[in-house]
């Protein structure tokens, strides 16, 4: 296990991997990405996340988590918030 402590809560591997990827894609500091919570808005709230950036994000997630995300799994709801994306990925990784 490689769990990391952040903001007093135990973070899953998937959570820390997703934060690391968002940090790379958005060019944000670790501190800013650590402050993301379940309700932090993604696609729609972060203007830099256009369709090309989202495609890059999903492809990088697939590579680092060793999963495949199908076309029909990618909808507005999935990318609406950090919490939605994380719970989708945690379910994928566990499957």
């Amino acid at each position, binding site marked *: 296990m490689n769990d990391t402590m952040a903001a007093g809560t135990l973070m899953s591997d998937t959570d820390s991997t997703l934060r*690391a*990827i968002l*940090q*790379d*894609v*958005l*060019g944000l500091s670790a501190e800013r990405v650590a402050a993301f919570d379940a309700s932090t808005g993604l696609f729609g709230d972060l203007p*830099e*996340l*256009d*369709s*090309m*950036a*989202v*495609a*890059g*994000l*999903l*492809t*990088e997630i697939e590579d680092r988590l060793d999963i495949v995300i199908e*076309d029909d799994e*990618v*909808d*507005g709801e999935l990318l609406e918030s950090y919490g939605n994306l994380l719970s989708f990925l945690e379910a994928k990784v566990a499957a």
Partner: protein
Amino acid sequence: MIATWPCPGPHGQSEEYALALDRDRPRRLLIVPALFDEANRMRRMLVDMMRLLDQAGIDTFLPDLPGCNESLQDFTAQSLHGWRSAMLIAARHFRASEVLAVRGGALVYPNAMPGWVLEPAKGTSILRQMIRARVIAAREAGEHEDSADLLERGRTEGLELAGWRCGASLIAGLEHAMPEIEGQRLIAQSELGGGGGLWLRAEPAAAPAQSAALARIIAG
């Protein structure tokens, strides 16, 4: 700073540009850029690296792939094979002694030359990501497009992906192209320090620490 090199294209000879820091020194590095938008996101980092290598006594050349950047060639007429020939011609024209291929540049660089490959990308990954961007953009516009259908159409008719009007030969070429690394040293992004790979960035950015780390590896 701006040099030209003659390059045969599908419609005859054309003149292509390269950014060149050339003082006729013995070490002459050809840089084969990443493909599509990744080239834009990494250009600043590479140009900063070129300036550092200039100070370290190494000449550098960053050519445009035909159809890209300042090139007047038709993008739709391009193929991996065409880009590979063009990069070999550029290497000869500039009398390059070594090569740095970046990401998808590893699919088209002159791989008989000594040098480095930074985080090579597979053709299929590049294609998959661009098709996915198109599917997501369509969904946002309330339309439905299917990756498999798009790929099938692309193979026969060509396909517009992220604003690039890719011809059928480019799509078909990308589908199975693998980087062919022949003795060049692989450079992992992790060797360039923090900040993550710039090709992942949603917005182009400079990364002086990464430029410096890359220049150090190449200067040796």
